């Protein structure tokens, strides 16, 4: 099938069509139920269904919110009165670091992803996310990593360098103990969960929408998740690279951040904030997306300005990448550069403003219902707008110089974070709670909780603007009396407890009413979006044909039709039993039926070994860590073994006379899209590394080689580059062989590829130490060159495993021209790795010569 015609390959039935109008065979529903049955007892741990994983994911994020909140309260207790010695300074440093880190990395971002995992398939009309086991794996790594992170507090080993971990404070000279490693390795690997989430969201939003839900009809929340994923793809690699570099400096003394050896602590700040600022929007945009999903239902009016909101969300996502230096206004960066960032920081408030106006307009046109979610949304608008105003204030450079690192900033970002994310979250918890078991949370308690939280929040954090303006720095464990800070601090502490009381009330009500039931048939808000269709473990009984933005409002009788199986794919059509529809990215035309995996232990086991690997490394138990690492790789292979069943089933009928293939390979397949997304992450990380190289050269040209000293001769470049190209050639050869089902040739090509890749890598690595004599501990130049080489080496290692795995598939007869997902995935990674190898070797040989 050509790519060109794909968007119109399957004609969409006209609006109102019933795909399967006749009565359904009675045993069909039972088969669907059996296929999607939730494992019980201990085996519940094998669950991969997004409705269950999503709920425990949200619950876990809530747990970390409470734990980090308790630390916030302890901080406030310590600061309530001057000269307090309740908590010593060492513990205090750990408390605010863990509080900030956990709130950002273990609560805010995961909570938004958890909501995505739970809600996304439901609002799109899909049965599950495209990679259910990946979500389960992400969840388990997050749970284990998060618990270990908090446990470090008990042993006084928690990180204490602040949530942004600036070196030199956090490097080996000033933080010789493991505290910082726990941050770097412990938090670092939880980013796996974020990236896994991003892949689910991209492929989920673009490829699993209900037929007919074209780009212009998908709920704003789906747009928000798409932008969230895009931002994770481009922001998280920067922090991952920063983390790797700092860990290399700590463990092996490679001086990336040490000024005396040509490094620069500002490199960390750039990388951190290139991630850190977008992070704020990674938290805010999906929360705003939830608000856009709730406001129409609560106001009983379709969202006003749909297109404008899409524009605003995407625009914010982009422009938020041009703001990072506003966290570095006081570091002596050139004035004009500061001015660019100041300007962009102000520009970004425009799209946020658009969203706020649109919600207000929707409330204005409809009629507001005074439910608890409405209250929290109004509270959100009030607090967030205030936080936005102080945000514009600190974007003004001289003002920032005045209040930088004071409590004014603490006040500002809690207004933005709690206003922009916690209040919408509580609205969302109230709004979607009935999906769990049909019950609504108590209105009376909810109103009280909202009152306490809203009042408590403002009482706690408004005075901090003033303490900040009066000069109180952040991150001090105590302060002397007589500076005019006493009352303000006391009031803040009182407010914090009022806020906590409000949260406790909500938690109490939730615990009282908790219960998980597969079946959802409540629609308490008369909402218009698909997640309120009657559904069960399998999602909706049939997958609706959608032609409006609020299908439940505008397509009468939809709920009944869907539940009676009159729409698409009303029952299992393959032996696997778990299936969903893959649709085209623009118009959402059905393309193929995708088989989904069922319960399995592998995600949990792999998460355990992954966590063990990183945590053991943090404690320098390298040998056992390696064992855990190897086990992880083995588990990945076990995981993948059952996938890629090939195009072995005949086409199936999904209704409306549409016959679709079961599973596909090639550029149309969901697996291809997933790998491409992963490669984007990979490429961004590599770009961050190259950028670091150029940055270090900008600040320390004196450590770069001048003339031929410390440079390998150019013929090494020629040899290395030729070998990388040849490695690429081997894969082209393998691909041709596979197309012709020439299996012996294919295996030969793969083996040759492995050999040539090894040679290419050797020709890239060896001359740098063998000929040029570089020692990575010597200066920043040698260190960054070796960082690039190690990065490429890591890819060579990954590809070796992938090729061996592909060979194993071939030898066991699981690889041929019609069953080639494994091969395609390896091929995509291979192509990327070859390109990256060429850039690495080119940069190392040519850049110093060009500038020297």
């Amino acid at each position, binding site marked *: 099938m050509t*790519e*060109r*015609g*794909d*968007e*119109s390959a399957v004609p*969409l039935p006209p609006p109102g069509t019933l795909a399967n109008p006749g009565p359904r065979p009675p045993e069909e529903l039972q088969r669907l139920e059996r296929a999607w049955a939730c494992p019980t007892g201990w085996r519940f741990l094998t669950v991969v269904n997004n409705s269950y994983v999503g709920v425990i994911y949200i619950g876990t994020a809530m747990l970390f919110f409470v734990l980090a909140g308790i630390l916030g309260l302890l901080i406030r207790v310590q600061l309530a009165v001057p000269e307090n010695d309740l908590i010593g300074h060492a513990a205090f440093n750990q408390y605010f670091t863990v509080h900030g880190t956990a709130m950002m990395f273990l609560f805010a971002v995961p909570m938004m992803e958890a909501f995505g995992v739970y809600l996304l398939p439901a609002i799109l009309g899909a049965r599950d996310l495209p990679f259910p086991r990946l979500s389960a794996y992400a969840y388990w790594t997050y749970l284990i990593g998060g618990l270990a992170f908090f446990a470090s507090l008990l042993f006084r080993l928690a990180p204490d360098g602040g949530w942004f971990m600036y070196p030199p404070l956090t490097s080996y000279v000033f933080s010789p103990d493991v505290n910082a490693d726990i941050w770097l390795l412990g938090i670092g690997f939880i980013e796996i969960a974020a990236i896994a989430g991003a892949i689910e969201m991209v492929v989920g939003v*673009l490829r699993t929408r209900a037929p007919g839900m*074209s*780009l*212009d009809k998908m709920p704003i929340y789906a747009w928000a998740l798409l932008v969230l994923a895009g931002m994770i793809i481009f922001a998280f690699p920067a922090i991952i690279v920063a983390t790797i570099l700092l860990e290399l400096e700590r463990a092996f003394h490679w001086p990336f951040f040490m000024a005396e050896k040509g490094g620069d602590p500002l490199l960390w700040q750039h990388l951190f904030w290139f991630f850190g600022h977008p992070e704020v929007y990674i938290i805010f945009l999906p929360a705003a997306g939830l608000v856009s999903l709730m406001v129409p239902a609560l106001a009983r009016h379709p969202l006003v300005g749909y*297109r*404008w909101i*899409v*524009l605003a969300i*995407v*625009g914010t996502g*982009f*422009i938020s*990448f*041009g703001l990072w230096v506003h966290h570095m206004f006081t570091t002596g*960066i*050139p*004035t*004009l*550069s500061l*001015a*660019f960032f*100041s*300007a*962009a920081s*102000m*520009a970004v408030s*425009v*799209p946020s403003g658009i969203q706020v106006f649109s919600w207000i307009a929707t409330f204005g046109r409809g009629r507001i219902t005074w439910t608890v979610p409405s209250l929290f949304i109004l509270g959100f608008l009030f607090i967030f707008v205030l936080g936005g105003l102080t945000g514009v204030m600190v974007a003004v450079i001289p003002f920032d110089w005045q209040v930088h690192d004071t409590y004014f900033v603490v006040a500002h970002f809690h207004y933005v974070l709690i206003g922009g994310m916690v209040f919408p979250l509580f609205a969302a918890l109230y709004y979607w709670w009935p999906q769990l078991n049909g019950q609504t949370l108590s209105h009376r308690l909810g109103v009280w909780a909202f009152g306490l939280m809203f009042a408590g929040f403002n009482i706690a954090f408004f005075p901090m603007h003033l303490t900040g303006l009066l000069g109180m720095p952040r991150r001090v464990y105590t302060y002397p009396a007589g500076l005019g800070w006493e009352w303000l601090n006391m009031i803040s502490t009182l407010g914090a407890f009022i806020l906590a009381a409000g949260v406790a009330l909500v938690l109490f009500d939730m615990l009282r009413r908790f219960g998980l039931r597969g079946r959802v048939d409540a629609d308490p808000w008369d909402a218009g979006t698909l997640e309120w269709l009657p559904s069960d473990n399998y999602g909706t009984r049939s997958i609706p044909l959608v032609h409006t933005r609020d299908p439940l409002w505008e397509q009468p009788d939809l709920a009944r039709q869907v539940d009676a199986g009159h729409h698409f794919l009303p029952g299992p059509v393959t032996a696997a039993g778990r299936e969903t529809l893959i649709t*085209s*990215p*623009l*118009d959402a035309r059905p393309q193929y039926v995708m088989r989904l995996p069922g319960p399995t232990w592998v995600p949990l086991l792999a998460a355990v070994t992954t966590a063990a690997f990183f945590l053991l490394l943090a404690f320098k138990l390298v040998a056992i860590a390696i064992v855990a690492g190897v086990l992880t790789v083995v588990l990945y292979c076990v995981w993948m073994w059952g996938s890629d069943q090939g195009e072995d089933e005949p086409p199936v009928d999904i209704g409306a006379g549409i016959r679709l293939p079961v599973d596909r390979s*090639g*550029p*149309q397949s969901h697996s*291809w*899209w997933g790998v*491409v997304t992963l490669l984007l992450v990979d490429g961004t990380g590599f770009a961050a590394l190259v950028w670091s190289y150029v940055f270090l050269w*900008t*600040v320390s040209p004196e450590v770069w080689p001048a003339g031929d000293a410390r440079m390998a001769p150019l013929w090494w470049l020629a040899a290395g580059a030729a070998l990388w190209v040849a490695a690429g050639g081997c894969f082209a050869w393998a691909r041709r062989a596979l197309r012709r089902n020439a299996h012996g040739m294919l295996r030969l090509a793969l083996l040759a590829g492995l050999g040539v890749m090894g040679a290419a890598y050797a020709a890239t690595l060896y001359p740098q130490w063998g000929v040029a004599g570089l020692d990575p501990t010597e200066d920043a130049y040698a260190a960054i060159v070796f960082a690039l080489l190690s990065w490429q080496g890591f890819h060579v290692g990954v590809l070796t495993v992938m090729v061996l795995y592909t060979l194993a598939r071939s030898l066991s007869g699981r690889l041929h021209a019609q069953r080639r997902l494994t091969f395609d995935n390896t091929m995509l990674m291979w192509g990327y790795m070859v390109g990256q190898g060429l850039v690495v070797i080119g940069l190392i040989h040519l850049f110093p010569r060009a500038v020297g």
Partner: protein
Amino acid sequence: MGSRRFTGLLVGMFAGLLIWAAHFVLVYGLTGLACARGLGGATLLGVALVPAAIVAATLAALLATGAVWLAAWRGGGPAGEGRDETVRFVRWLTAGFAGLGLMSILWVGLPALQVPVCA
């Protein structure tokens, strides 16, 4: 539609914002490098080089974004193969992103005329 065609569509749709990003990287990198090498005050025939280069880059970026906007507004832009409604929506967004890009490029470029380069 395969991933490559879709990527092409995305690039076309986000052109205005991508140009903004490229412009941002360029002017920021230029300033940073010039100041690090002590060339912030360099002049050629009495014209301050860094601000002049920034103004030039800004004008070029504005022109490019303007062209994207115009094309999308006139019904061109990233070719869609979807239904008319979807295609119209994509065009509207293309124009919208170009408008947002235009505004942001101008806003980021302006300081070059007012603020000393390194200081």
